[in-house]
């Protein structure tokens, strides 16, 4: 073949390829990127969790997060609650609470939200909602006025206001309409049972579309349209923001902060430093293995470099854990500090002797700790590997085991010594530390995976449940932390995650909710 003929063929191939690409390009859909200056009247959120239907028991907790449902009280910054559907919630006696509704409220279907409607829905939650039933056993509600409801608890319960503001406890909906449409997703949408500023107009496996609720009185909705897309793939959510197809990508991985640095098509935002309340807890299993000895648990407490975890290992997207509670809480104690010398002293005192390879052993048995992590929280593996490196310096051999179902693995009393667990020491509203204490440390607690039986702590939790005075509560909380972290080392907090989002450039001023995940509360 001559050179000229070869050149002609190459040209032909290039031209054909270009035409193919051009044709493909013309067949594409325009990306319709909004300009940065466009006022926020439409919001498109990409999230990882799909909402299958609007059933309050199954998916009610999404209602306040995406604006289609409201709560009685609203958690705000600083560990405080403000009225939402209620005008006030006042304690009339140790076991009686008076709930006063705002006037002229209505569900999205037009039915008034009055005392009768509130009694219906609260009674339903007290009986059917398994998040509520163990926390308020024997509680009753009764209408005591057109807009007044009295809640009576079986025992003095300090955390009642927090429950009224909790997304999983008392999301408010039209119970009568719900009963008629229950079990039929399309009818649940048509029944407009919810109470929030935005009404769901369509729900498919791919997306939920919402429109402003006409005549909404609590706070007039600012958006003309709200779309929530369900995209499980984290990278696809971020790409959707970069390409102008979404405005907010929720639950991005920490690595996105690095990847988006310097880019102009998306911005990585997170909660202000020092405001994070949830993160990774080190759940300990003292029933078997080396952690049965409190001195080994003390060694872990002092052998972990909490500052390094937050600032270096996790790239500054986390706050340093200084104790069991976030430092901004009034009762938080700073009792988690890194001190390798002290850690080694505890292990020496417990009889664990360093061997030639640096690992300690006792009676020929190496000091090995099996540490669980899980793929649903990718950063848990990163933290676990960092702990492995940190604790090696004090002679502890950490074996990291990634498990698919960490709850199932931890329910087994044997086979693990510790777990890196995504959790929060205070509740979703950041106002109640008691219910997490009940769940984590009482014998019947749902999250007591370490099988902790501590009568002293149980008594304290019982006292906290019935204590209303803030000063007394803070004193008791200090005592609880002394037991949990300083004396018994039942558990530790490793680091606190500042909730991140990836936002479109026009939303670079978006404020990640400092408390709770009310993504559209600002709109």
């Amino acid at each position, binding site marked *: 073949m001559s050179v000229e003929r070869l050149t002609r063929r190459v040209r032909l191939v290039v031209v054909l390829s270009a035409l193919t690409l051009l044709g493909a390009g013309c067949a594409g*859909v325009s990306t319709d990127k909004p300009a940065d200056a466009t006022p926020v009247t439409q919001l498109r959120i*990409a999230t990882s969790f799909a909402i299958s239907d609007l059933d309050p028991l199954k998916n009610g907790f999404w209602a306040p997060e995406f604006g289609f449902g409201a709560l009685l009280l609203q958690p705000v910054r600083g560990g405080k609650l403000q009225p939402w559907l209620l005008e006030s919630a006042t304690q009339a006696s140790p076991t009686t609470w008076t709930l006063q509704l705002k006037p002229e409220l209505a569900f999205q279907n037009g039915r008034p939200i009055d005392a009768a409607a509130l009694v219906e829905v609260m009674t339903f939650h007290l009986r059917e*909602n398994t998040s509520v039933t163990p926390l308020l056993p024997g509680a009753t509600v009764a209408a005591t006025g057109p807009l007044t409801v009295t809640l009576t608890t079986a025992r003095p319960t300090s955390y009642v206001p927090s429950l009224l503001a909790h997304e999983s406890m008392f999301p408010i909906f039209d119970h009568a309409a719900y009963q008629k449409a229950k079990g039929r997703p399309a009818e649940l949408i048509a029944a407009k049972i919810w109470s929030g500023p935005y009404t769901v107009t369509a729900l498919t496996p791919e997306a939920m579309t919402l429109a402003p609720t006409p005549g909404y009185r609590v706070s007039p909705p600012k958006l003309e349209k709200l779309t929530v897309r369900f995209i499980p793939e984290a*990278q696809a959510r971020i790409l959707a923001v970069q390409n102008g197809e979404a405005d907010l990508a929720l639950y991005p991985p920490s690595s996105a902060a690095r990847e988006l640095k310097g880019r102009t098509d998306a911005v990585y935002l997170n909660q202000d430093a020092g405001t994070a309340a949830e993160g990774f807890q080190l759940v300990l299993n003292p029933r078997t293995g080396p952690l049965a000895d409190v001195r080994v648990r003390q060694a872990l407490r002092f052998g972990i470099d909490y500052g390094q975890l937050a600032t270096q290992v996790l790239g500054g997207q986390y706050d340093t854990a200084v104790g069991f509670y976030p430092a901004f809480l009034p009762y938080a104690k700073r009792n988690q500090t890194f001190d390798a010398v002290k850690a080694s002293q505890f292990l020496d005192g417990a009889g664990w002797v360093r061997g030639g390879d640096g690992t300690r052993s006792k009676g020929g048995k190496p000091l090995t700790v099996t540490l669980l992590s899980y793929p649903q929280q990718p950063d848990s593996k990163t933290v676990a590997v960092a702990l492995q490196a940190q604790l090696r310096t004090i002679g502890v051999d950490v074996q990291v085991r990634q498990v698919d179902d960490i709850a199932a693995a931890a329910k087994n009393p044997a086979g693990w010594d510790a777990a890196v667990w995504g959790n929060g020491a205070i509740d979703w509203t950041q106002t109640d530390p008691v219910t997490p204490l009940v769940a984590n440390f009482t014998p019947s607690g749902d999250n007591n995976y370490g099988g902790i039986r501590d009568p002293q702590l149980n008594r304290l939790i019982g006292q906290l449940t019935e204590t209303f005075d803030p000063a007394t509560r803070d004193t008791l909380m200090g005592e609880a932390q002394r037991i949990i972290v300083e004396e018994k080392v039942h558990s530790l907090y490793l680091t606190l995650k500042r909730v991140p989002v990836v936002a479109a450039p026009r939303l670079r001023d978006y404020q990640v909710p400092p408390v709770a995940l009310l993504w559209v509360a600002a709109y």
Partner: protein
Amino acid sequence: MIIVIARRVGQAVATLAVGSVLVWSLLALAPGDPARRVLATNNVTSPTAAQVTAKRVELGLSGQPVARYGRWLAGAARGDLGTSWVTGRPVRHELGSRLPATLRLTAAAVALALGVALLLGCVAASAPGRWPDLAIRLAALPALVLPSFVVGLVLLQVVVLRLAQFRVISDGSWSTVFLPALTLALATAATWSRILRAGLLQARGAPHVEVARARGAGRARLLLVHDLPNALVPFLTVVGAGVAALLGGAPIVETVFTWPGVGRFAVQGITSRDLPVVQGYALLGITAYVAVSLVVDLIAMAVDPRTAPASTRRVRLSRSGR
């Protein structure tokens, strides 16, 4: 011929039966108690023993394994694949509502792959060992070795973000099918084009092609009239298997492109340990594969008697020789 067809159908049914046992075992061998898992999904985190027992009965988890398998198989034969533990809706409806999107993606991917494979296969076979053949071989290499999610992500980064064409979020319509279909088609086309090239070269060596060439048939006529029909039978068999595999959904590609098909739904089912969905998806995939393979085999037998079993051929030859 009827005996051959019956035997082939019998093989397909036996394959389906073995597949169904494996699929059913997913639930039977899964760690943990499915009843407790379903109750936890429905917000019952600390169920009573009675609640667990009732849920076990409802899920068909009580009784001997053989009886349970029988009940499950009978249900599956009626199209009852159970209820999703996550959504609470029948798996049949969940898969059925997503199947059109997967069929659309499959059709587009197969059309693209066929077009590219026919073009590249014919070009490569027309100049074996020369630069077009080498160039196509080189181009096919990355398409074959790169995982589809890497190809998908590269296409999203380059075509969507840099060239500002197409969308990240696919809605399952024809207007958003091109990129996911292209991702699926690339590796498939690379394989198919190599098989077609080999088939064409083999067909070219046949005596009747030599005769046609000696009688002055042109290159185009030789390719289209003599080589291609003879190379198509093995090619169609491979295409059929590829189509069958695609019909079962393309979980990775559907996930990368947020394509609302059965594959992506299966990935969600796996992530949330929604075993009835995983079972239903696996059964759908196996059935599609077996059914399409059966149809392709039967077509191949009809088109080319050489692919029929030897005993049938002998009968036919003896009859034709009479």
